[in-house]
């Protein structure tokens, strides 16, 4: 996923000008390269955050595009002395929430289902390279889990049940809170396993 290239070069402040105004950092505009760098650096976090808010891999791409565009247009507001991530997450949150509202209105959310199986999603996380080169790894990691956890995985990801729903199953001994903890451990374990 590349940065949208619809910005013409005449919007870029000439380097000499940038240099001459370097005394006051708040007035320094970000040039394209710097913007790209920061984006590269934080892409994974921004995407991860968007995904956590909207739960759809393909929509994450769209929202991320919009976030990038919004950030670019507001780039002069960015203070280079402050961290980039919080600034960009502000945009991501706004765009994601607006997407959710829109998706909720249009009732499209369920339709993403089929397309998502075929579309590419995250390729910016270090983990994805692991998943890519060792695709059987996930399978083998899942197989290393205990029976109980594999069942939880099945309920959550095959049956599509929420944790609250799982907690209410008649033979489920664990409380919802306990299940939260178990899922945390479960995700953590899988991530650890995948990263080895």
């Amino acid at each position, binding site marked *: 996923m590349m940065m949208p290239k619809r910005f013409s070069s005449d919007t870029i402040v000439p380097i000499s000008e940038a240099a001459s105004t370097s005394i006051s950092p708040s007035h320094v505009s970000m040039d394209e390269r710097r913007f790209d760098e920061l984006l590269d650096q934080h892409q994974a976090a921004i995407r991860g955050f968007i995904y956590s808010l909207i739960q759809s*891999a393909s929509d994450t791409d769209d929202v991320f595009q919009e976030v990038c565009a919004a950030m670019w247009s507001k780039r002069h507001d960015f203070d280079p002395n402050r961290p980039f991530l919080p600034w960009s997450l502000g945009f991501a949150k706004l765009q994601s929430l607006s997407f959710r509202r829109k998706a909720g209105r249009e009732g499209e959310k369920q339709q993403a289902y089929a397309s998502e199986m075929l579309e590419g999603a995250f390729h910016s996380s270090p983990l994805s390279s692991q998943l890519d080169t060792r695709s059987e790894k996930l399978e083998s990691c899942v197989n290393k889990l205990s029976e109980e956890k594999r069942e939880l995985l099945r309920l959550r990801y095959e049956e599509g049940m929420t944790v609250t729903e799982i907690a209410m199953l008649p033979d489920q001994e664990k409380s919802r809170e306990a299940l939260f903890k178990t899922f945390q451990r479960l995700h953590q374990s899988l991530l650890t396993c995948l990263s080895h």
Partner: protein
Amino acid sequence: MTAKQRVTLEVWLLKLEEGVLSETELHEYTELISTDEEAAAYVADRSTLVSALHTRGRARKAAAKKVVAFSDAQQSARSDLGQPPSSTHRRSLLALAAALAIGLFLSLFPKPEASNDVADASPQIREVETPSMPIRPPATSVSSDEMPFLAIANRGSLNHPELASSAVAALAGTGEAVSEPLPEIISYNEHIRPILNQKCIACHGGVKKSGGVSYLFPEEALMAGESGIPAIVPGDPDGSEMLYRITTDDEIDLMPPPEHHERLSDREVALITKWIKDGAKFEDHWAFLAIGDVAPPEVENAGTNIDAFILDGLNERNLIPTDQADDYTQLRRLSLDLTGLPPTPDEILSFVESTDPDKYEKAVDRLLESPHYGERWAAVWMDVARYSDTMGFEKDPNREIWLYRDWLIDAFNDDLPYDEFLTHQLAGDLLEAPTREQLIATAFHRNTMTNTEGGTNDEEFRVSAVLDRTNTTFEALMGVTMNCVQCHSHPYDPIRMEEFYQVYALFNNSADGDRGSDVPVMRTHAASDREQVAALQAKADKLRKQIQQDLSSDTAAGAQFAANKDSFRKQFKEDFTAFDIVAVEGSEGTEFEHLGNGVIRSKTEPRISEAITVTVKVPADGFSLQGFRLDFLPTGDSEKPAGHLSFAKDGSLMVSAVQFLLEEGPKATGLGFAAFDSNAGTGSYGPQNLVKRSFNQQIMNSWKIPATEGETPWAIGTFGKAHQLEPGKEYRFRLAHAYPNARENITSHFQLRFSSSDALSKRRKLNQAALKEVYPDLWLAPELEAEPALDFWLHSGVAKHPEWATLSQIRQDLKKLKKHQVLVMREIPEDQQRESRLFIGGNWMNQGDVMKPGAPAAIAPWKDEFPKNRLGLAQWMTSRENALTARVAVNRVWEQLFGEGLVVTVEDMGTMGAQPAYQKLLDYLALRFKTDYQWSQKQLIREIVLSDAYRRDSKVTEKMLAVDPANRLLTRGPRFRLKAEMVRDQALFASSLLSSKMHGPSVMPYQPEGIWNSVYNKRTWETSEGEDQYRRAMYTFWKRTSPYPSMVAFDATAREICSPRRIRTNTPLQALVTLNDPAFVEAADALGQRMIDAGSELSERLNFGFLAAASRPIDDKTLSHLTSLYHQTVDQMSGNEKQAMAFIARIILNLDETLTKS
């Protein structure tokens, strides 16, 4: 992120997925991700994972539906045929579905274009990705590919410790039944540490803290690891991540990882659970703890306290020890152990015949007082001290350090208390007003190697020597292997890497620096010469005092002397004249003015490297020039203190060349100087540097004249003969300062005068001749009036005294008693002390934080009153709180007597060292050594050799052999092959060849040709003559790159580094040595002769040979064997009885019994 934060984050994410996250929570969530990089990275990874899991879940569900549909269809088809569905088909379909899922999964994660961009995004993840080094617990075999540091261990070059636990572990019985009830109180040392050491520490210890978890230090184990959850929460097994990890069914989380180790047994888990529940109390390793209760147990028939401990242990195991050995065996064992020599036949007979009930005790005391006791035990310490007569490394040149060996022998014989013994060796030079012996003792740590190879970095090998001192101190004296800690925290023992470098810092301020000269050294007399030296010195002092008195002014002789002195002075009166100065020029443009009487002063500050040329005019009546005199006057700058000669910071002057020449047209004639004298500047910066020096040379060694209060510096140059200067001629006198990068000025204010007195040359000559005898080291003549000149006056005949000849003779005699060199430790001055830094990864080029001096806290606390140097280290080691020092010392003594230490690994009393079979006994002896015996080694040895355990018969029963093959439980007396030194000494002693000469330089007994091939130096093995050929083995010249072969065959080490324990081996080479080595051949010949001399009967002769070598009378069976063998041999050697007896002696000397201490 803390564990709590992780869970909170997960709850938020799960709530988000359910669409029930509140506004506030959403805000908090965003806030956390924005500010916590780790959280952001986690969310990124988790999102990827969850997306993949969703995809996988849907694919599986879809596939399962198809399978169900398919199998339903099939089943209905099959049921038509009356067949059950095939499980094989079902499996293949599932596989198909799985393959489909994986295919989809693959397409979800296209390969990123540039993976390093990705890695930059999240440092946490990158760390996780680092390929982990699979370290297996020590018990399993390890391939060297997997563990690089073990590969080093296998080469043995670093003396890396054995990682395998000892056989004693087997005795301790680890395989207890699960059903056995848990102990009431769980002891960390007894129950928990063995589990951790065996199964956890390799990854969670000093080398590696996987997941940020280490069990070496309590505070680390209780701290949250990378997961944010503490491994151990005292009192809360459920909250302890460790317990979850060792019990979970998740292979991912299970610890130890299934591929590394089997899971912990139920009992081990139960032990750990109870231990955590009871509060997870950590304990220090037993050897580091203070010595607790050492009261001997109440046991029947225990002869001594030592035996009470041992019998108690044997009773527990239903073992019955052997009886006392016979008198012969006891005396032989005792003599060899205490003096390294067997008893003489006379000693044996009188001991056996004696009916004195205290005869054994008396023999112990007699042997402890034998001077050979010191030799025997010094030889042990020489291994520890890595004593060698060469420097080591490639060139391995000779080094003179044997005075240290002499010191060792005397220290043992004088029973120097062990605490002082250690202190003198570690820091004798730092004691107040150290004695010569205390200084020699410091050679202990100068036995490190020196690398004289060209192109090697002195600093590198200085550091290497300091590291060696650190390691040796701990391995030899503290029984802790520290080598590991140079590179990483200790893998098993609670010693941090920082602590290693704290000790390193204590050693890092010694003045030695891998120099070829091995400085600092001390030159002193050998102990054997010292008495004579002291006597002669006292006599000389007394005589001189008397002479001085006799020549004092109120005596007639004194009056005569005073008169002679006056006339002598007149004869040598010097007289200087100033010439007219025509011009003074500075080469760098400084202007000078002359103020009359030869005084010259610069108008401005002279430049550095200024050369001053003074043109003088010879007086009208000519001049017979003998020399000149320069007086350096203060700058005249009121800002500078008096005595400040130059404008330079320290006020000193520098002159690199002086010239006096006549210029006529293009020709310049310089007059050569014979000598320079001065009252200023000495040594390598003295004025002699100016004697033969071309004016334009760039010179390193100049004459430096320090600024001094009071006396103005002067210099007198003499030409050695008279030069007739023609009237009116102009000469140039030049002073140059051509020293590159100089910081001192040349003079700016001085007086130049000339002399025609031949007193200059005469005085010069007189000084040389007279002073050479009295002050050989003095270049500069003392002022004639000065006090030490009495000898000068006497020598030159100005003063006369009848005893002068006697005094001179005594001085000659003193000179003949040569001083010898010994390397010593010396601390560099406080203001120049080095800053010691930790070496990251053990690499001296990769320096970390600055280290404050100190010592490992786990062993004993470092007190504020300890000086922060080697003396402080010695005080720490011998402090009341340090229980390890005494334990290690006792263990070493025990090892020498019993063949194995109470802790078998003498060099390692740490947690990976062998478990002692009788820990309480070791503690008892350690405490007694420290308190009751006040560190007396003789007393300690005495108590041990008086025990029944030591005096037992070494006969072994089958049961003993089965239960305790190595005799670690001490069911029987010690029996093992003699040490290398004893093998030689015994043969020479039995044959009466052994020289009783003690002390002195190393000797070179027979050694096969061509063993030595010393590169770069022409050192050869020059076989010693006379009695030096038959000295005790410990005096043998020790070359590190080529140690004495017949001792190496018997397990002697090269002593390149400390070797705290010789591992006994038995090889055929040993028999070849004792059969063929010229020393042994000669010993056999001599013993044969002794046997012949012992009596007229053959049986008497054979019996004598047996007594001398094997310390017992010959038995009938052996007698009959040897008798018939003797007769056969005589026949074969055509009646040569002498040769035949030598042959029999050779057999006796080669008997297993002779080479064994039983």
